[in-house]
Structure formats: structure tokens, C-alpha cells
């Protein structure tokens, strides 16, 4: 691996942290392709660096999302049961897969989620009648001067998606938001901003469950990882602040396009 200047790594972390926090993701979905395809970092080193960076992005953006009341903590904790188990399993399985298998799994997962997001981008999940009871895992949301209620639907789907997201996270160095946000929004009745904020809240835990394994195996390249994380911290704080200014439908469309492009690019690498 060639030596990469520190400032390039910091800018990479800042950019992916900003876009990640803007979309309610950890940013690993952009960072892993950037490190491997553009900077020539071996995929296992990139995955370990991404996991740490994802934790930085998720923790930093959660401070802002909590302040805004966008995080549904009870829903997050319930789904964390599945994501943390998946994260632990994924982190253990990752050691057994080849570089080609990791690339292919990564690309196919992203492209599939891009299609799902594009197909369901027009749906609205909120209920305008605020007298409706949100239930234990639902909540209330304030958008400008309007108040809304949302209720969780198909909890088993949300739990299954969280388990898969956790495993993908441990395998591929993502936070898993790329699976959770589209599924929570498209199938489980959660508004996109709450889905993003709650997913980011969970991502720290999902990332930590597998990051300890990479740390223990000695897969974390300290200088590279630190530089990327140092960039991700301010980038994600800015992204979380900007996310409030972007329309919900635009967020969904941006996410669908990014998923398709990055997913196909990664899958083509294996040919």
C-alpha cells in the first residue's frame, strides 16, 4: 500500500462524514469505496478504518439529533438487540471471507437498497392528526410549525433488517444505516428524519460490537484510521446541522442514486 498524505485522509473522512450525517448514515458506505477504489487501501484495512470512522460520525451526529428530539430512543434500543448480535456475528464471519466475496456482497447490498429506496421515495409515513396515540415505539415529530405522529408498523421486519444491518456492518465496515434507514422508512412507518437519527443513534453500538474484534485482531491501521476519524468528527457535525434544511423527499432520492452508483461500482470491481 502506498503512503497516503494525512490531509487527503482527513478530507476523505470529513467528506464522507458530512454526506453520511446528512443522510442519517455512518458514512462507511462512501468511505470504504473511496479508500479501496480511489486510494488503494486493502479492503480489510479500509473496513476497520471505516468502522471506527462510522462510530465517530454516529456519535457526533447523535449529539445534534438528540438536541433536536429526532432520536426515538426506545425504538433504537429495541432494534439494538438485533443489530449488536448481527454486528458481533458479522465481525467474526468477516475473517473467513475473501476480498472478492467482500466486494461482491458490498456492491449487491447497496444496489438492492438503492432500488427499494427509489421505488418507495414518494411515500409519507406521518399522521397529521396529533390526537392519534403513537404507541410505545412510535413518537411525535415537529417539522417547522407542524406537528405529526408516527407509529411503528411491521416490527419483525424492522428487527430482521436490523439483524442483517448489524451483520453487514461487521462484515463490511458500515454502520448498517444503509439497510436500516430505507427499511424503517419504506416498510415500517418511520419518517425519514427519525429513521436516520435513530439509526445513527444505534450505529455507534453496532459499530462498537464489531470494532472491538477488528481492534483485537490488530486490523486497525492507527495513523490511517485516526486521520479519517479526525476528519469525520467535524464533517458529521456539519452534515447533521445541514440535514434539517434538505427536504425529506430529496434526501430519499439522493440516497437511492448514491446507493445504486456506489453499489454497481463496487460489484463491477469483482469482474
Amino acid at each position: 500500500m502506498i503512503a497516503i498524505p494525512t490531509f487527503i485522509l482527513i478530507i476523505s473522512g470529513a467528506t464522507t462524514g458530512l454526506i453520511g450525517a446528512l443522510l442519517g448514515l455512518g458514512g462507511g458506505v462512501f468511505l470504504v469505496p473511496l479508500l479501496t477504489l480511489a486510494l488503494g487501501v486493502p479492503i480489510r484495512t479500509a473496513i476497520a478504518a471505516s468502522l471506527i470512522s462510522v462510530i465517530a460520525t454516529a456519535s457526533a451526529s447523535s449529539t445534534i439529533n438528540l438536541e433536536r428530539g429526532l432520536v426515538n430512543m426506545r425504538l433504537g434500543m429495541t432494534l439494538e438487540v438485533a443489530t449488536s448480535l448481527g454486528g458481533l456475528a458479522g465481525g467474526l464471519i468477516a475473517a473467513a471471507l475473501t476480498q472478492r466475496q467482500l466486494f461482491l456482497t458490498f456492491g449487491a447490498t447497496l444496489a438492492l437498497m438503492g432500488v427499494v429506496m427509489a421505488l418507495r421515495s414518494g411515500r409519507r409515513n406521518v399522521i397529521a392528526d396529533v390526537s392519534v396515540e403513537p404507541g410505545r415505539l412510535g413518537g411525535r415529530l415537529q417539522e417547522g410549525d407542524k406537528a405529526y405522529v408516527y407509529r411503528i408498523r411491521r416490527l419483525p421486519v424492522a428487527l430482521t433488517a436490523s439483524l442483517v444491518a448489524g451483520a453487514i456492518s461487521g462484515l463490511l465496515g458500515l454502520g448498517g444505516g444503509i439497510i436500516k434507514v430505507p427499511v424503517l422508512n419504506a416498510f415500517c412507518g418511520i419518517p425519514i428524519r427519525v429513521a436516520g437519527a435513530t439509526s445513527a443513534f444505534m450505529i455507534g453500538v453496532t459499530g462498537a460490537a464489531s470494532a472491538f474484534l477488528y481492534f483485537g485482531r490488530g486490523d486497525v491501521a492507527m495513523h490511517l484510521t485516526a486521520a479519517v476519524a479526525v476528519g469525520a468528527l467535524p464533517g458529521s457535525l456539519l452534515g447533521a446541522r445541514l440535514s434539517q434544511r434538505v427536504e425529506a423527499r430529496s434526501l430519499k432520492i439522493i440516497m437511492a442514486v448514491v446507493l445504486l452508483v456506489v453499489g454497481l461500482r463496487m460489484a463491477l470491481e469483482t469482474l
Partner: protein
Amino acid sequence: MSSRVRALERIVEVALTAGVAASGLLLVAGLLLGSTTLLWWGVLLLIVTPVVRVVVVTVGLVLDHDWLFAGVSFFVLGVLLSSVYVSGRL
């Protein structure tokens, strides 16, 4: 949203901010001084921050007598601690 939930969210926010700020400082210092030891502690603190967040939430829920979600939180903490245990044996 009840004021108790809001108070717990505020404490979680403070815990996350403290963890992120402290690890950020260690990482910047490590990069500037070329110290692998500082980088190692900065990365470790970053990974531990979400674990501390789970501990804070668990304690808050226990104090609030919200046993169902406290149980959920204990389970997540158990998975994280088993990950630490497994990583020590790799």
C-alpha cells in the same frame, strides 16, 4: 415526550459529547506529535464511547423503574461485553 425521557436524552447527549471531544483531542494530538500511543487511546476511547452511552441509558432506565427497556438495554450491554471478551482471545 415526558420530561424524564428528555432529561435522560440530555445526559446521553452530554456523555456522547464528552467521549467524542476527548477522543478527538487524543487523535489530533497523536497525529501532530506522531505518537502511536495517543492514537491507540484515541481510537479505543472512540469505540468505548457508545458502550458508555449504553451504560448511561441502562442506569437511567433502572432509576426510572422502566424494567422492560432496562432489560433490553442490559441485553445490548451483554452483547457488547461479549465482543470485548472475544476480541481479547483473538
